[in-house]
């Protein structure tokens, strides 16, 4: 069999797996969406208020915080994974929380990775709001709270883009969640594919495992789903950028 045939058959089998709604594939997709979605929600709830505070409040350490956020935007994911791993292993300082090899640990890792991304892009979006907008709100009798609301409204498309960028990074991330999540699926085969249902196995970590096992069609199926998800997020981000 030529390599082209091998690839072609892999793609056909991948589509069969997707359209037959294979439980293993679905459970992995579900874990990815749950983990990345939760991390994005938590990251957004932290990052946007933080970006507002940095913009509106003049506190000591503000510049240091901005530097940390900018640095955080390029954090290597394996480093974050290793750091959290050392914190949550049974012998670590937070071992008592029993987060080791759980979805919660994966959420925590992605939260740490994407919060600076969302915050950094939000900060740029908020800073792009012209100062006269804030002055106009004050001039019309608005309070600082009104100014913050007006500013967020003006920056809304940029803020949505920042959230989508965070979600995109979370979905595509592999290193950190592999270390802290353990890439675990429950034992037992379903339909002769995979190892049962995913517990901490995400699309990205599953691709690395299935490829190493030679399960190319499963890897391609997972890859198609992953790319579709990331592409959808990017199409949405582009849509909002265009509106801005």
């Amino acid at each position, binding site marked *: 069999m030529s390599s082209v045939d091998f690839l072609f058959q892999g793609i056909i089998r991948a589509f069969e797996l997707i359209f037959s709604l294979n439980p293993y594939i679905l459970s992995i997709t579900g874990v990815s969406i749950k983990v990345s979605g939760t991390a994005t929600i938590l990251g957004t709830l932290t990052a946007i208020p933080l970006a507002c505070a940095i913009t509106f409040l003049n506190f000591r350490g503000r510049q240091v915080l901005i530097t940390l956020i900018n640095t955080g935007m390029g954090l290597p994911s394996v480093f974050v994974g290793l750091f959290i791993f050392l914190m949550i292993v049974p012998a670590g300082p937070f071992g008592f929380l029993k987060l080791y090899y759980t979805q919660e640990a994966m959420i925590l890792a992605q939260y740490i990775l994407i919060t600076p991304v969302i915050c950094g892009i939000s900060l740029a979006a908020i800073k792009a709001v012209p100062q006269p907008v804030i*002055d106009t709100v004050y001039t019309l009798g608005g309070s600082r709270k009104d100014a913050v609301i007006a500013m967020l409204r003006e920056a809304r498309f940029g803020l949505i883009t920042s959230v989508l960028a965070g979600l995109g990074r979370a979905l595509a991330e592999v290193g950190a969640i592999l270390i802290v999540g353990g890439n675990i699926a429950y034992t037992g085969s379903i339909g002769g594919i995979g190892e049962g249902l995913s517990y901490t196995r995400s699309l990205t970590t599953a691709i690395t495992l299935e490829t190493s096992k030679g399960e190319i069609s499963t890897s391609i199926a997972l890859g198609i789903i992953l790319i579709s998800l990331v592409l959808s997020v990017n199409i949405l981000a582009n849509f909002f950028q265009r509106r801005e």
Partner: protein
Amino acid sequence: MHSELMRVYDLTKSFGNREVLKKINMSINEGEIFALMGPSGVGKTTLFRILNLLEKPSEGKLFFRGIELTVCTMREKINARRSMSMLFQTPCVLNTTVFNNVAYGLVIRKVDKNAIREKVMNALSIVGLEGKEQQKARTLSGGEAQRMAFARAIVYDPDILLLDEPTSSLDPANVAMIEELIKRIRRELGTTIIIATHNIYQVKRIADRVGILLNGELIEVNSIGRIFEAPEDARTKAFINGEMIY
């Protein structure tokens, strides 16, 4: 005899070592149109920002209806600001519809929805923008945007209207329309208006009194007749006659 609405005592503003405003003293009477005239870059906008409490003076005092605003609480400051309105040289357009732009000042004052609709439609009709309420404000022309900003500034009937060179970037038709609006608002609503401008002819057309600001110094305050016919300061005369070069 008009009562005093606003008073400025020995007001100074510095940015670093640069003194932009030097011991400004002036008072604004209720219901008058006061023009602050001077060439570009002499501190007119800075003075307006201080009057509207957007900036703090470095020294001096500012009184509004007898309350000293330079030492007041945030609540008092917001209340005072809610009696004022300021129009910038370049109109600021919020990224929403014309209606929402004009309604903004009423919304933050928690005015009833029906009353908002009525007041906004009335303000839009005053500035000649009726029928454009659902249009995206960013699609308005420069003149329309300034008129929309004008509607937004007057919709909540402020006691005092600060106009910072509102016609400097407009075509003659829009300039005439804004000037007519200024006179109409004073005539019909009794609003006190302070306008910053470097246009001598505009001052002659609309103002009751005028203050000449040169290099951060208020060199003369007088009625229109006195300023143009018998100025007290030689620099005023030179400025009016166009003999000063900046």
